[in-house]
C-alpha cells in the first residue's frame, strides 16, 4: 500500500463552524445561516474572487473548503495542472439548488427558470469551480453516498497516485441539504520526508473526520 502519501492539510465546515488542520478557524456566532456564514468566511479568506457570489450553496461550501486546505498546503502553487486531481462526494447531490430551480419550473408566474440557477443543478459543478480557480486539469470525480465513505475515498485516491494519474489531490465530502452544510476536505500529496506528517491511511482519515 501507499506509505508515501500524506494529508498535507485538512478542513471541516459544518453547522456554522470551520476548522482547519484541527484548529478552530471561524465560528458563525450570529448563526444567521449559511449565506451570511459563507460570506464571512470568504472575507476572512481575503480573496478577490467575485465569482464566489454567483455560486450556489454547494459550490460556495466546496470552494471555501478548497481554499482552507490550499491555504495550508506546503506549496499551493503545485496544486494545478494535469496531475492535480479532485474527488468529491456527498449525499444530496445538488438537490438544494434543484429544489430552487424546480420551484421556478412549476411556478412560472413568478421567476422564470434561469440558466444561472440551472447550471448549478449538478454536483460536479463544485469541482468545476475549484478547477477554474486553481487551473486544476486532472482526474475529477463526483460520487454519491449515504455518508462519507472513508475506505472508498482512500482506495480511489491511492489508486490515482499509484498509477501516476495524480501528484496532488483535493478530496473529501461536501454536502449541502435542507439549509445545513457538512464538509470535510483533505489535500493529499506525496510525502516530503519531513517529520510530523499525517499519513494518508484509513485510520488517520477516520480520526480526523470524527474530530470535527
Amino acid at each position, binding site marked *: 500500500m501507499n506509505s508515501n502519501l500524506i494529508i498535507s492539510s485538512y478542513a471541516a465546515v459544518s453547522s456554522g463552524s470551520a476548522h482547519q488542520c484541527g484548529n478552530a478557524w471561524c465560528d458563525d456566532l450570529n448563526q444567521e445561516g449559511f449565506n451570511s456564514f459563507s460570506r464571512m468566511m470568504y472575507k476572512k479568506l481575503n480573496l478577490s474572487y467575485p465569482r464566489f457570489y454567483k455560486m450556489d450553496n454547494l459550490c460556495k461550501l466546496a470552494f471555501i473548503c478548497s481554499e482552507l486546505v490550499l491555504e495550508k498546503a506546503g506549496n499551493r502553487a503545485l496544486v494545478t495542472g494535469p496531475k492535480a486531481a479532485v474527488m468529491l462526494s456527498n449525499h444530496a447531490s445538488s*438537490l438544494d439548488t434543484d429544489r430552487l430551480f424546480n420551484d421556478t419550473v412549476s411556478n412560472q408566474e413568478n421567476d*422564470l427558470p434561469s440558466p444561472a440557477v*440551472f447550471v448549478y443543478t449538478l454536483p460536479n459543478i463544485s469541482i468545476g469551480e475549484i478547477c477554474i480557480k486553481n487551473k486544476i486539469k486532472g482526474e475529477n470525480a463526483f460520487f454519491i453516498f449515504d455518508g462519507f465513505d472513508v475506505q472508498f475515498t482512500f482506495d480511489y485516491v491511492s489508486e490515482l497516485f499509484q498509477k501516476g494519474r495524480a501528484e496532488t489531490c483535493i478530496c473529501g465530502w461536501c454536502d449541502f441539504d435542507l439549509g445545513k452544510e457538512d464538509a470535510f476536505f483533505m489535500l493529499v500529496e506525496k510525502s516530503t520526508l519531513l517529520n510530523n506528517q499525517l499519513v494518508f491511511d484509513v485510520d488517520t482519515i477516520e480520526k480526523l473526520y470524527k474530530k470535527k
Partner: protein
Amino acid sequence: MKNIFVSSGQVISALGFTTEENFRKIENGETGIKHIHDDRFSKFPFFAACIDDEQINSRFEAMDNGEPSYTRLEKLFILSISGSLQQTGINLKNADTLLIIASTKGNINVLEGKNQDLFKPGRAYLSELAHVIQQYFGLFHKPLIVCNACISGVSALIYASRLISAGKYRHIVVTGGDIVSAFTVAGFMAFKAIGSSACKPYDSDRDGLSLGEGVATLIVSADRNMSNTAVPVKILGGSVTNDANHISGPSRTGDGLSSAIETALTESELVASQIGYISAHGTATPFNDEMESLAFNTAGLQQVPVNSFKGALGHTLGAAGIIESVLTIESLIRKTVLPSVGFRNSGVSMPIRVIQAAQKIQFNYALKTASGFGGCNAAVLFSKTDEQ
C-alpha cells in the same frame, strides 16, 4: 492494465427496447427524436427522443414485480439490468460483484406535479434510487453512484475498469440512465440550448441539442467467460480531465478533451493512427461540436471515422456514455460503423471524418469520448482481439 473484458447489455431508448433494434435502426439512419408538444414537460414544444410509457409499463408488469411501486426511471433501470444479465451467469448477490449507477438527475421528476402524490420527495435522492435497485436485485453491495454531468456514463465505465484492475471486484455491472423531465426541459430551454429541429451534430446548420432519455447496461469483468461477445472486447484504458475554464461552456481550445484522449491512448499503449472509429459526444450545440473538432485534430484523429449518436437518440445525459459505449462495442464486433444521423455538411472549422452512411470496417480499436458541464471530459478505449 490486466485484461478487463466488457460486453454489451441492453439498451432502452426512444428507438427501442433492445440493443439489436437500436443498432439496426441507427444503421438505417433513423432517429427517435420528435417534436414534442406535451405540457407535462413544457408549455413550449421542444425536440426530444422519448420512450413510450405504455411500452415501459407493459414490459415491466410482465416481469411480475408486485409491491412497491417504482418510478419510471427505476423501471427502466430494472428492465435494462435484468435483460443484460440473462445468460451471463452474473449474480449481483455475490460479494465479488458490484453495480455502478450513472445518472445526472435520477428521479428528479418526483418533485414535479402529480408525481408528488405518488412518491415521497426523498425519492429524489440518488441513494434512494440506488436503494430501490439494491432491494429489487438483492445486491450484496450498495451500488456505487457516479454523478458527473454528461460524462457520468463514460467515467463510470472507467472507474469500473480501474476497480477490476485493482482486484476489488471480479465483475462490475455498469448502468446509466436519465429521463426527460419538465426540470431538464426547462433548464436546457433556459440555456437556449435546444435546437429548432432534430439535432444535427457537426452540421453547418446545427443550432442546439435535442434531449433524450434511456438506460443501458454494460458488464465489465476480469473473467473472459462472462463476456457475451463472440470475440473478446477489452477496455484498455481511460482518462478524465477538466478544462478549468468554464462551468457550462466548452473550452475554446479543446485541450481538456485532447488531453483526456492522449492520456487514454498512452495508458492503452496505442497511438492515434491505430484508432479505427470514434464514438464522440456531438451534442449539436455550436460550441461543443466545434471544440471536439479541435480536440480530435490536436490528438491526430482527424482521419478517423467519427459519429455522434445524439442525432438518433437525443442527449441522454447520464445514460449517454453507457448507451453509446454499448453501440461502440457492437460496432467493433459487427465490423460496422454507424452513420452520424442528422449530419449533411460539415460545420466545424477543423476537418473531421463524419460517417454519413453505415460502413463495413474491420478495426480493432475504438475510442469513446464525452464532455460535460463543469468542464469535465472523459475518454475510454476499447479493443477487439481474436485470441480466445
